[in-house]
């Protein structure tokens, strides 16, 4: 019988080709309610610098932020 890709287990491959388990820790236990995922709007997505008071040691302030 031919073994197709979805049926084949990664564990049958040499270890070098096996991805480690995802190490991301779970945080859902910290919160109430249901988690809702969204896609950020451009203003939120790009609001990454303050005009002043940034903790960024390079002082890379956004000189155009309102």
């Amino acid at each position, binding site marked *: 019988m031919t073994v197709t*890709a979805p049926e084949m287990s990664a564990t049958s491959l040499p270890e070098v*080709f096996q*991805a480690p388990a995802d*190490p991301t820790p779970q945080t859902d236990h*910290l919160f*109430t309610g249901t*988690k809702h995922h969204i896609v950020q709007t451009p203003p939120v997505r790009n609001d990454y610098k303050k005009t002043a008071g940034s*903790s*960024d*040691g390079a002082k890379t302030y956004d000189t155009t932020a309102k």
Partner: protein
Amino acid sequence: MLTLQINPERLGTGPSPAWRWNGTSYVTSDGSRVTPFAHQMVEQAAATDGTRTAIIVRERVPRRPGATPAPVSVTPGELDVIIAQARRWPVDHLLIETAPHRPVRITAGGVRSTPLFLAHSDGVLYGSWDLADLKRFAGDINPKEATRLLIYRPRYSTDTAFTGIRRLTERATAVVGGDLVIRYPDPVLHAQPRDLVEGADVLAAFTAGIDTALDARPIDPDSTLCHLTGGLDSGSIATRAARRWPGRINTRR
């Protein structure tokens, strides 16, 4: 992480069409080359089913012996699984897929700590982590990117300051053969803010998150150098690292 020069139209046309490892690079007899950056935190592996080849260059993870670079022969089904596993690698990686008479596909991982710049000329793909390596492909100044830089609003995109040179951003895929097309992935999803449960130990969770990031790579505090911007984020991580490895983390300004 690597430099490369691949001619998709000539792949498989040489006297020995398979990719081989020559000690520093993956090469074909028809002139294509992929050269990983030689560094103890970087490793490479490759597999082929006799037609398709997958070349993987990636950051190392802890508790794994270094990968053997020579291409491994596998079945087509095994190669599909290897490609799927390569895309799940938890730290920085690049996956290069080739097949004779087909476009080359390069996929970047989601945790990019290295850049890859790409240029396409006369049917040949050139790539490097160093933008200066591709200076001969720089055309005009890209007006949109130049404007972004001048008004201090840079955007992480496939654009660079020069037409003719592109950037492969996180999770993006470059398809090259006749033309260079870079496809963005789906947008990253963000969880909307929620209320905390009573007594939620946020600090412990934050610490666990930093520890996870620190443990994602085989860091040896005695021989690892981290370049930090010095803000609140990187300062918190440096402070945590200093607590985890007392007396072994030195800071220099």
